């Protein structure tokens, strides 16, 4: 039996995740996911699943490994110069909690600024983190990024939001 998580504890986890992305600490970020952990940016509002509808990104560990290797590749044309980001996470709420497994669903809002070359892009929306309880903290079962303009016309998104 797990006890209801404290919002402050969830915030700590989400803020850390955001920081790892901004500081390009990719290996530490990837280590936050469970083995089969999903990262998903749907391309439409209320998209029921990532398999029968296109997504902006839908990646498990294999594709994340490709992308993270690409981040360090000397010939990644579109990452020269590389993008810089700042992730702001706020309005954290506990959406669901399973006392038996300790699994938590956290809802939050985000704003991300991405700067590359002469352009700064702004992204905003909601995060849903499904988190498994780990010994000291949490591990990500799924991170869903619902962009407010998910079905709009988008330029290249090369960072994890």
């Amino acid at each position, binding site marked *: 039996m797990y006890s209801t998580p404290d919002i402050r504890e969830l915030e700590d986890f989400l803020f850390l995740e955001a920081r790892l992305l901004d500081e390009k600490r990719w290996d530490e970020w990837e280590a936050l996911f469970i083995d089969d952990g999903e990262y998903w*940016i749907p*391309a*439409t509002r209320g*998209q029921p699943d*990532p*398999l*029968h*509808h*296109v*997504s*902006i*990104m*839908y990646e498990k560990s*294999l*594709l994340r*490994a*490709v*992308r993270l*290797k*690409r981040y360090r*590749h000397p*010939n*990644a*044309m*579109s*990452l020269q110069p590389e993008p810089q980001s700042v992730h702001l996470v706020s309005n954290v709420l506990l959406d669901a909690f399973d006392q038996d497994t300790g699994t938590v669903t956290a809802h939050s809002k985000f704003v991300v600024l991405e700067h590359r070359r002469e352009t700064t892009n702004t992204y905003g929306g909601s995060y849903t983190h499904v988190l498994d309880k780990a010994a000291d903290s949490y591990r990500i079962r799924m991170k869903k990024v619902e962009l407010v303009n998910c*079905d*709009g*016309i*988008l*330029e*290249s*998104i*090369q960072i994890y939001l």
Partner: protein
Amino acid sequence: MGYNSEKIAAMIRDDGVHKAVYTDPEIFDLEMEKVWGRAWIFVAHESQVPEAGSFYSTTLARQPVLLVREDEETINLFFNRCAHKGAKVIEQESGKSKVLRCGYHGWSYDMSGRCRHVTGGDEAYRAIGVDKSSACMSLTKVPSVANYRGFIFASLSPDAPDIKTWLGATATSIDNMVDRSPVGRLEVTGGTLRYSHDSNWKFFVENLNDMMHAMIAHQSSAQTARVMGKQLFPDDKNVPSEIQILSPFAENTDFFEEMGVHAFENGHSYSGGKTSIHAGYSGIPEYEESMLNAYGKEKVEEIFSLNRHNTVVYPSFTLKGAIQTIRVVKPISVDQTVIESWTLRLVGAPDEMLQRSILYCNLINSSGNLVGPDDHEAYHRLQHGLGSDAGDWVSMGRHIGAEEPNEEGGLSATGSSDMVFRSQFKAWKAYMTAANGAA
């Protein structure tokens, strides 16, 4: 600079083009009128308006148009402009309705475009001899519309040529995609991706059959996937689709030379044929069985033996028959282009086929994909590099003179030939210099 036919013709040489074709806003405006205003432009697939009253709102050469199904047989394409004051009648992308009602003053039209309601009555127009039944009170139809095997094209020219003749050999790429359904039917499904490019539309259209860039521009993702695939699946068994889709982009130059390019009248082209980057995908037994039952062994082998990479129906429509995705070109300005990607479900085929197409779109066509940003970056650098004073001409002379006639009435060449670009600009020049009104 006040272009005329002579000046435009001088911008296209046998072995290169003047950079202004990509950078001059005046050329872009002329293209909208003369290329995009005359060619058949892809509008939608008929499955997007499935029932009487279904509508789909899109653009045709930047103009708002509205595709409407009137009944089982009839699909109409109107300019999306109220006959009253000129507001767009339908703003929603798609839906179903009994009437097409303008939200401004309430003028309403039926699915044939006839005006059915004028707020306050049409008697108010008696003095000018007009009532609801007048043509000027109806929605205006786009001059030419054609449906080729479910794919709807339109032309702003009333003298558009016969669609099948105009498509030429690229009609067989559409045929092949349709034939890959055991019941011969496709359905647009799984949403649309809209990807903005800050570059001229022609860079995208050229790049699809540019067989020299993949192993260079996509090295960071494709080579990475390839190496990981070999490490994780050394016996080549159970290789996940993700790896199967990404790896071939890192094939060596010989592979792409072998794929070959094929160019046809009107600027159309395709790459691959007997083989392509889609040829190595593992089979889905249930699907193959459904195809065998539907068509028989000989026909199925013929269908599957056609393995084209990209087909370009110049200037607006590109398709990948083997993976059932299409990309639609929407020019916005001289240096802005939106690329729409759609997925088609093979009706009657197992779900895995759709899932693979969706995965392909995510990996290759979405804004967040692993391959496209490098193409996008290349176009961006082209747009900016050509702004320099280093030279007025863009070279397209590779393997010139080494083309060979093919069985489909076009020309074929080794993969790295610039033949496809030369062929596109030959068509471009013909459109741009044709006398007004000629298609």
